[in-house]
């Protein structure tokens, strides 16, 4: 399940709903990863563009990898502006066993950072500045150059 929200995430509500959705699914391990906007580089917040069609197919391919190990993943992400100390990202894995869950959340979050079609902007003095230095070219980039 992939959820997109305008602005900041209501983290406690999402963590609670996901926990309750899977309460009887017989998973032994639930590991959410929550990403929160840090106060650094004098930013007022961050802003996100999301390209949904490719994000959905990327997410579905990970959901299939999870299913092959008896696990499932859920993810929530913000669109638009998210202010300091608010949260923009939750990814969670549910799995029967802890090793699968611990390895899966790590691999998922790292590939999310490298591949998910989301663009981040610093909010500074009311401007929206592409976070070029922290961004990663998707694998296979540059074929048109």
């Amino acid at each position, binding site marked *: 399940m992939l959820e997109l929200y305008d602005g900041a995430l209501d983290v406690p509500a999402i963590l609670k709903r996901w926990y309750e959705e899977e309460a009887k699914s017989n998973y032994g391990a639930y590991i959410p990863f929550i990403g929160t906007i840090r106060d650094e580089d004098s930013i007022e917040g961050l802003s996100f563009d999301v390209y949904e069609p490719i994000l959905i197919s990327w997410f579905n391919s990970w959901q299939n990898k999870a299913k092959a190990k008896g696990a499932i993943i859920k993810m929530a992400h913000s669109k638009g502006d998210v202010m300091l100390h608010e949260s923009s990202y939750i990814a969670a894995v549910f799995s029967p066993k802890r090793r699968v869950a611990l390895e899966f959340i790590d691999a998922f979050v790292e590939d999310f*950072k*490298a591949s998910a079609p*989301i*663009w*981040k902007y610093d909010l500074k003095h009311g401007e929206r500045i592409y976070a070029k230095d922290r961004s*990663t070219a*998707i694998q296979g980039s540059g*074929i*048109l150059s």
Partner: protein
Amino acid sequence: MVRVEFLGPIQKDPLALEITNLNELAKILQGDDELGEWLKTSAVAVNDTLVSSLECELKDGDKVSLLPPVCGG
């Protein structure tokens, strides 16, 4: 017509081009100064599927997207 979209921070309006493959698109975009460095760092999707080479035929109604470097989370 093939529609070409520039995603995220690439500040450029979509194009509608009469092309039949990605090689033709590459030649057109390489001549577009407005794109600057973006071609080197952007991935390419055809009809929302990422492609890894220019060996890709295009037909009327197809959509090509350029995806610059990402940073979710």
